[in-house]
């Protein structure tokens, strides 16, 4: 039985797809059979971030409507044989997704994989609700910014009321907070919400902290999930997040501005802002 994890946020542009790609890749690199599904029908982008956009033949909607088999639509990742991608449709409208169709697909994938990562579209409409409906766990991606935090709280409301686990009165979805685009310099200046405040307001467990990083854009330009860039701060932060998701106790990094040594203070010029 696979564990179904939805990556969601409410607000757009906070790093859902980047995070879904990085976390799915990380899980696969650690030996788990993993599939990552793009639920953003009409505006697919996971394929670009994963670097497989030219290998898309069939998509999620084709499978739901019986125009292709699941194995025809699954794309095997170039870099990890444990990882598969199920792309969203580019052309169909979002009503093409049905609850029954999604349930059937997740059911078949569940037999073959250890982890199913659902990359949710933005918003709280149908697509987002379908992405989270069958989840066992949820990663709520949040930026240290008022609209993102508020929307995350709305999503937490949906997770606790509009999911299958909620409707069947089963154990609730396990909710994790993933804070992305964190800039400790701005936090120190008092111009960015700090991590403790975000955790206090949303009142859910923190699974990871991803610093604002140049590596993220560099990676998406190249279509290589940022977790492969293991020299980068964001890559390492995602690797830590994956370890925690697998139940390991890993200390939190990148929360504070690194202390600068004497040499860099003398010759390094001004601190980056």
């Amino acid at each position: 039985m696979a564990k179904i994890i939805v990556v969601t946020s409410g607000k757009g542009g906070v790093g859902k797809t980047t995070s879904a790609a990085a976390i799915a890749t990380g899980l696969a690199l650690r030996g788990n059979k993993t599939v990552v599904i793009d639920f953003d029908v009409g505006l697919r982008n996971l394929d670009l971030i994963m670097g497989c956009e030219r290998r898309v033949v069939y998509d999620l909607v084709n499978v739901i409507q019986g125009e292709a088999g699941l194995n025809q639509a699954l794309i095997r990742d170039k870099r990890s044989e444990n990882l598969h991608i199920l792309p969203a449709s580019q052309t169909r409208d979002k009503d093409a997704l049905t609850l029954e169709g999604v349930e059937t697909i997740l059911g078949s994938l569940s037999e073959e994989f250890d982890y199913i990562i659902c990359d949710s579209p933005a918003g709280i409409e149908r697509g987002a609700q379908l992405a989270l409906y069958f989840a066992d766990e949820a990663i709520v991606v949040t930026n240290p910014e008022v609209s993102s935090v508020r929307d995350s709280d709305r999503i937490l409301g949906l997770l606790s009321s509009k999911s299958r686990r909620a409707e069947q009165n089963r154990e609730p979805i396990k909710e994790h907070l993933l804070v992305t685009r964190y800039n400790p310099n701005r936090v120190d200046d008092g111009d960015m919400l700090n991590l403790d405040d975000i955790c206090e307001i949303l009142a859910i467990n923190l699974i990871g902290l991803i610093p604002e990083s140049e590596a993220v854009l560099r990676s998406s330009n190249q279509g290589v999930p940022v977790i492969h860039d293991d020299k980068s701060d964001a890559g390492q932060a995602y690797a830590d997040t994956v370890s925690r998701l697998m139940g390991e106790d890993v200390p939190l990094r990148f929360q504070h501005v690194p202390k600068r040594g004497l040499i860099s203070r003398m010759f390094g010029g001004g601190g980056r802002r």
Partner: protein
Amino acid sequence: MKLLEFLKGERKKSASVAKERLQIIVAHQRGHRGQPDYMPMLEQELLEVIRRYVKVDQDAINISLDSEDDCSVLELNVTLPNRD
């Protein structure tokens, strides 16, 4: 620039303003969580009925739905103005 700000007196940091605003809005959102979709409409219409008889403010009415075991309780709280 920092010195100038210091001399003018410490301005309130924007992050703490953000935190306060979020705490209020999130508490408000959570109050409405799990309620049926018709609640805002019901609240509005009840307010209109009450206003036909008594002059009350928009925020003087508070409505909530609590479920216990096999029964639900609709609680309506109206703060009436002082009679002068």
